[in-house]
């Protein structure tokens, strides 16, 4: 089953009289349990695509089906509910609420949830924090946590609603290489557990940890391939892959 189906998505921005085709006919399928990396330089349209995938923005043309639901036809409130229940966001800048404990940050999406399907929000949030290995620090506020830990809290917040997909926008952009490995290991582990992940990055070595890479330039997909020589982050690494070629990017 396809979680995401994009058909001919186009998004045009008007910047000071100039027309910019940020997305120019994107067609893309993301199957369940996929781990997709969208890579490209800045200005390639990958962030715009991410916003559309995350229902934060709507395309000017084309069709977007999320779990078979045509998202472009939904109103603002329905989009908010989809973001709340079906999508988990992980941002480059973590975007946690300051002076709010890790647990409360993770509880936040459940507060806006309308279908009341989660009976014990607190236990659910604690479990999500346990999954990302932060159970002991759940009463710490963001400024008491390291960058990697903050990003783990953000991932727990994305997981807590049992979303169909996790969208991660440069999740390792603010992290050092060791912490980047940790976070990527966490993503790989979550993906192994069956969670679909779409990750936007401009770093090839991050993309190599995924299963499937879509390369963008000037609003178009110029390359779409399965990762043949997948890298595994250190914590899960079992078999070293000899002669792994470095990406030219």
């Amino acid at each position, binding site marked *: 089953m396809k979680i995401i189906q994009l058909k001919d998505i186009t998004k045009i921005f008007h910047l000071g009289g100039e027309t910019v085709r940020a997305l120019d006919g994107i067609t893309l399928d993301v199957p369940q349990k996929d781990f997709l990396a969208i890579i490209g330089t800045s200005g390639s349209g990958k962030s715009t695509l991410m916003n559309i995938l995350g229902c*934060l923005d709507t395309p000017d043309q084309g069709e977007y089906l999320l779990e078979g639901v045509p998202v472009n036809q939904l109103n*603002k409130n329905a989009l*908010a509910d989809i*973001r709340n229940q079906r999508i988990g966001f992980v941002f480059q800048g973590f*975007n*946690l609420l300051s002076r709010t404990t890790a647990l409360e940050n993770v509880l936040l*999406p459940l507060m806006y949830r309308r279908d009341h399907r989660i009976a014990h929000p607190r236990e659910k949030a604690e479990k999500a924090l346990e999954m990302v290995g932060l159970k002991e620090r759940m009463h710490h506020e963001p400024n008491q946590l390291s960058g990697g830990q903050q990003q783990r809290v953000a991932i727990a917040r994305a997981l807590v609603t049992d979303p169909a997909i996790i969208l991660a926008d440069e999740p390792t952009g603010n992290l050092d290489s060791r912490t980047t490995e940790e976070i990527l290991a966490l993503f790989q582990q979550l993906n192994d557990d069956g969670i679909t992940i779409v990750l936007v990055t401009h770093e090839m070595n991050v993309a190599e940890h995924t299963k499937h890479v879509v390369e963008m330039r000037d609003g178009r997909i110029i390359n779409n391939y399965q990762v043949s020589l997948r890298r595994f982050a250190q914590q899960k690494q079992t078999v070293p892959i000899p002669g792994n070629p470095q990406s030219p990017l």
Partner: protein
Amino acid sequence: MKFRQFIILALRNILRNRMRSLLTMLGIIIGLASVISLIALGKGSQADIEEKISTLGTNLIMVKPGSTQTHGVRGGAGTRSCLTMEDVTAISRLARKVLHVSPLIRVSGQVIAGNANWNTSIEGVDITYPMIRNYEIAQGAFFTPRDMKVKAKVAVLGQTVVDELFPGLNPVGTRIRIGAIPFDVIGVLAEKGQSAMGNDQDDLIFVPSTTALYRMGDGETVHDIMASAVSKSAIDQAQDEIAAILRSTHGLGADDEDDFEIRNQTEIVSTATQVTTTLTLLLSAVAGVSLLVGGIGVMNIMLVSVTERTREIGILIAIGARSSDILVQFLIEAVILSLSGGVIGILAGVGIALGLGAAMDTQVIFEPFTMLLSVGFTAIVGIFFGYYPAKKASMLNAIDAMRYE
């Protein structure tokens, strides 16, 4: 529901900026504290005045002669001397809504007891007068009908007169002289204190009206007629009856104006309290303006808060908050801000009223309804002035908001 969580979040945001929140609330606190304390003190002093006036008597009706008019020159109130004992007799016989009636013959005189003397007001009254004016006898007795009939030279002294002439002694049974006429003291009035107008109601001597009329007056003229109506609601009717009776005994035609004036207690009360009422109203208006200014303060700080928290709002929208959620969240915060200002203001107002009431020795009357109304009003102020900032927050675009630094 999540309403509770919204309230917790709002409280946390308010407590996070304690100083700022307090300063924001200050406008509302001051506004409400002044409203509450002013109304409490206003009502209290009004009650004080009413209480003092009620010492004048129960359901009291006063009849005074009208003004004189000689060749177009009009004298003041009470300058005409047209009330007589016949009027009093007619009222007591004919007016059904009148419970008691008594003439009042008032002369000023020098009173001598032993080697002490004192100038006071001598009032000739009937035996019903203590009932009309709420006087009580502390010692001895009041006049008897026989005293009235024989024009007995007996006197009942007010407490001030006793203090002046018989300091520390019981005057009952002794003899005093009023002018040249000797009187036996048969009783002493219980102390009544000052009237609402500030005159000493104990500085007087009562003598039988007949005695006053024939030994001190001209045998005919009565200065005032005091009456009491059977009930408070009958005051107006009683007043009309008295007017009708007096018009007929005075032989006035249909076109003639009254040659007397009738006033009752409620009129005096309303005159006396009018100033307080007006003042309370005026000050309340000022307090209302300060509430308005407080509301603008809330709006200002909420706008600042929305700008400060733009990123946070962006995050909330991204993780699935509807714009209505954001609106409600900020509205709750504004309402809590103004409402807690209101509650603190009421407490402060109660404190100020009690303090001032104790300092000025006036009553303080709190009306729960007014307080409830003002709390409701502050909530409305919060909603009214919080709506625009909250709406602004709810309209934010998540992508732009999250990028905001």
